[in-house]
């Protein structure tokens, strides 16, 4: 359960939004929309605790926010967080273990995202869509209830948009929550939250 209450965020002098409140229940997805610069990424980063809001707060049910952010949440930004000079295998193994993957988690993620042919390639040799799939693998390898996704589908082809849609649906069915910033509709049923035009 994520509750955002009367959140006001600004970047520099510019106020992105004021008094924004919404909740995300378990098994619920929220599709964040809005013009470029409307504050979608900033809102995700505020939920993840990277940006201190001007007013309002984000709570995670009864869980202490610091604890929820350390163990209960995945943030997948529009950067993939992968090192170009290392193999996909090394990067995935690091990310999964760093986030506290369960045994067998990496294998499951490799299976689900058909990453096997990519594992021995250097990340810099992968296409944007392939890199995104490697980055998404950590969501499966180290299961956490909250997914914050920043345009997760943009580099993916039609087949993998459907594939990641199924992955999201499975996460929701398992009681997880998703907040995703998107320009196209999410492939799963989602509550819409429009941040409007650029402030």
């Amino acid at each position, binding site marked *: 359960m994520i509750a955002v209450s009367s959140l006001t965020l600004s970047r520099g002098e510019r106020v992105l939004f004021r008094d924004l409140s919404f909740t995300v229940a378990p098994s619920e997805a929220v599709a964040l929309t809005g013009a470029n610069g409307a504050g979608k990424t900033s809102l995700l980063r505020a939920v993840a605790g*990277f940006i201190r809001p001007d007013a309002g707060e984000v709570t995670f049910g009864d869980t202490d926010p610091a604890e929820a952010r*350390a163990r209960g949440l995945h943030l997948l930004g529009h950067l993939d*967080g992968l090192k170009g000079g290392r193999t996909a295998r*090394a990067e995935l193994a*690091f990310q999964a*273990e760093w*986030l506290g993957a369960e045994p067998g988690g990496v294998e499951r993620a490799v299976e689900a995202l058909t990453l096997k042919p990519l594992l021995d390639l250097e990340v810099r040799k992968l296409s944007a869509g392939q890199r995104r799939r490697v980055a998404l693998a950590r969501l499966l390898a180290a299961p956490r209830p909250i997914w914050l996704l920043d345009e997760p589908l943009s580099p993916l082809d039609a087949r993998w948009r459907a594939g990641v849609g199924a992955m999201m649906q499975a996460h929701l069915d398992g009681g997880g929550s998703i907040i995703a910033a998107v320009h196209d509709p999410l492939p799963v049923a989602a509550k819409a939250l429009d941040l409007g035009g650029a402030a």
Partner: protein
Amino acid sequence: MSALGILFRRELSLAWGGGGGPLLACGFMLCLTAILPLAAGADAAILAPVAPGMAWLALALASLLSLEKLFERDFEDGALDLLSTASVPLEGVFVVKATAQWLATGLPLALTAPVAAIALGQPADLALLTAVAAAIGGLGFAFTGALGAALALGAKRGGLLIAVVVLPLFIPPVVFGAGALVRAAQDLSPVPALALLGAYVLFACAISPVAGAAAIRNTQG
């Protein structure tokens, strides 16, 4: 393996992978050493007294080389967000990164330092002391350097900024480290100077993780 252990392994592999950064730093240090006789004259009577100081100056400058990438590459590719959403606090990430920096770059430089000092005319029997003092000082360089790297995070031309921020902080270890060698060359005990060097390093190790983590959080916000 614990999360800290796996981060440590990754940092070492990043430092050594892709171009052998630490060897580059050692080569830079030897180049600086080779330039001094050309600039100041090859007279042993001139060079020998400044050998310890010059070796420490070269050590301090060479320690700066790979600092720019320490946090910047994780910041640029988004991995810093990943490092911040784990059960390990950022202070822990800072300590692991600075320690890996010391192991990957500081220790090879500490082994190069006696070579540089002896080439400039320092007595060969001080080689071990030179390496030990350089290894202790290198730990301080790594932690204060990592603090500089955290402060310069996201700045354009961060490498230059790091040098300007960090070099003043490198003065105490250079003074104490070179002082230990000068005392030893005069048959005095180097221990007081080494103790001061150690005190500085402990101070740096205690303060910089807290300050560095705060600087990183500030950049992420």
